[in-house]
């Protein structure tokens, strides 16, 4: 009897599908003949919701797109508004954004290395990665009060300056005094002290990940020469970020079209050679080290240069509480800003940032109103996932899992 090709459903509830991906695979034995990803199960119409709200009220939605690289999404959106309005953001805010973008990048890559490890059978790495994620999430909490959905970037700067204290672990029945002292050791000073101590520790931690994976035979068997993406293919399918750099194309918006304070800090762009899953792993690990370098430089600059973190213009930034209580004009501005918002001049703009997963862009059309006329968010994962069929054809089923992992898919941004 001859065995015909058969169709298989992968997901939408599957631990290796990274969320709600339904992948319809046409198989011949173990070999994939055609892959048809069905997406949209997490579609929340973010762009349509944004059309019904004043500009500032949509910043929080951006966190919920790619929910493991929150502040980078906000960055693209606020940059689009700032470009259209012609806002000059204070330099200190630019450095804070640069620092938090890189913290976000490490957060994202840690999540990626952990979950991709789980997908491919490396259990321990997940625990290591989440140990460091916890510390960085605390940095989010310290600055915005929220551990994930920060809404920290605002058109004109950032919501507030960096705090002088770090949140500390409290005493509890399952933590004795000695343990508590160890946990709080680097939390006695300001947020910048804490971040600095993290940057000193972090390279050693990355070494630990590398001892677990880089020369691991099983890891290499699962990733070397799997999902090879040629530079031509990567460009034709709109791939950006690590997917493009893993194939040897040296393209990074932070260097080529710098924004925030990226033209003032020193860092390198790691690129791959073969364009396989293993090279992309190496690129992401190297990127974590580079991000660490950038954070260190930002910490040094931020220590030495106090200053405003928000533009001094009441059309986009709220007046201080004292000013609001004493000045009629300031009160009116406060009221108008939080009820009606501000009107953005008519026009259109596309602003992109180098998010951890690739180019995250915001295309904004304004007709002069206090709400966007049209907002299109360009998620990197959407373009990556669309190339699934072109990349995995002819691979084994288990390599599809490796490929989903290496795409670094998050459905919050693919489905929007």
């Amino acid at each position: 009897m001859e065995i015909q090709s058969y169709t298989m459903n992968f997901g939408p509830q599957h631990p290796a599908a990274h969320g709600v991906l339904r992948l319809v695979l046409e198989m011949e034995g173990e070999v994939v003949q055609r892959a048809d990803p069905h997406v949209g199960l997490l579609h929340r119409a973010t762009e349509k919701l944004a059309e019904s709200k004043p500009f500032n009220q949509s910043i929080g939605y951006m966190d919920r797109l790619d929910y493991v690289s929150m502040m980078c999404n906000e960055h693209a959106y606020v940059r689009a508004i700032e470009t259209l309005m012609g806002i000059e953001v204070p330099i200190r805010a630019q450095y804070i954004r640069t620092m938090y973008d890189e913290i976000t990048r490490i957060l994202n890559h840690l999540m990626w290395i952990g979950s991709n490890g789980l997908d491919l059978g490396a259990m321990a790495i997940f625990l290591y990665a989440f140990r460091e994620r916890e510390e960085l999430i605390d940095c989010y909490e310290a600055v915005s009060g929220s551990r994930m959905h920060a809404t920290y970037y605002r058109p004109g700067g950032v919501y507030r300056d960096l705090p002088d204290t770090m949140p500390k672990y409290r005493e509890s029945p399952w933590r004795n005094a000695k343990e508590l002292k160890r946990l709080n050791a680097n939390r006695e000073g300001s947020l910048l002290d804490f971040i600095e101590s993290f940057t000193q520790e972090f390279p050693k931690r990355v070494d630990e990940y590398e001892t677990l994976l880089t020369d691991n035979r099983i890891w290499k068997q699962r990733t070397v020469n799997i999902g090879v993406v040629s530079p031509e293919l990567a460009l034709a399918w709109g791939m950006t970020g690590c997917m493009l750099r893993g194939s040897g194309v040296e393209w990074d918006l932070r260097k080529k079209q710098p924004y925030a304070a990226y033209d003032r800090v020193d860092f390198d762009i790691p690129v791959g050679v073969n364009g396989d899953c293993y090279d992309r792993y190496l690129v992401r690990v190297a990127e974590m080290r580079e991000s660490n370098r950038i954070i260190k430089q930002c910490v040094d600059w931020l220590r030495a240069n106090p200053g405003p973190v928000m533009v001094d213009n009441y059309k986009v930034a709220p007046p201080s509480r004292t000013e609001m209580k004493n000045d009629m004009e300031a009160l009116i501005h406060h009221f108008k800003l939080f009820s009606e918002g501000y009107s953005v001049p008519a026009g259109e703009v596309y602003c992109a940032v180098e998010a951890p997963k690739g180019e995250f862009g915001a295309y904004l059309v304004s007709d002069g109103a206090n709400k966007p006329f049209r907002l299109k968010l360009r998620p990197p994962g959407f373009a990556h996932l669309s190339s699934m069929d072109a990349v995995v054809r002819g691979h084994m089923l288990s390599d599809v899992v490796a490929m989903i992992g290496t795409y670094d898919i998050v459905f919050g941004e693919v489905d929007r």
Partner: protein
Amino acid sequence: MSEAIASLAERLVAHFQDRVRVTEAVGQVTLETGHEHWLDVARVLRDEFGFEQLVDLCGVDYLGYGAGEWDVSDVSSGGFSRGVEGTGPGRFRWEDRPESVNQPRRFAVVAQLLSVSRNARLRIRCFAPDDELPMVPSLTGIWPGVNWFEREAFDLYGVVFEGHPDLRRLLTDYGFIGHPFRKDFPLIGNVEVRYDPDKGRVVYEPVTSVQPRVGVPRVLREDARYSTASAEQAQRRAGQG
């Protein structure tokens, strides 16, 4: 950088002549062309201008462009507009959706191009000639990566891409009716789903559980601008000093 952009705009005009309209604002170049030239122009942009990557493509519905819900310029003896009613995004239900006026240039397709080799960006736009059945040629033959972006624009705006190999819905539910991002589609949707214990299956019914409610009216202001406020701010600061 701005010099480079000026020269890009000039080179585009010199090459395409009157087939395109090139505009430049906030340091970004936009090229607009008719649907009959859409494919030719795109091919030349990729092959001769080095735009090897299409980063993004989306549909835009220009219905109601420039219309506010709150008249802020005119106060008469009869009072002034309160902005509590309106037909802006999110403020109507399916039965009350605004009539589709026959707007000649309602649907557009906008793509963002990127040249990795020359480090340049360009935005290209094409209006669909017919707003009853908006049709634009598909770019899949030029940039294969546009496939899903066109499927999305078809799904959300109903723009039909001629020559697309696989024009299915992408983001909405299987069997969804309507194009949800059109300006005359309500924010609360047209149907809601629930599990019917009597029928023993999930049923679709007209929306009743949510009301169209948007608190802030859509306001177009000419005077309350960031740039004018900057001047005021500077004046005030000088006064204080």
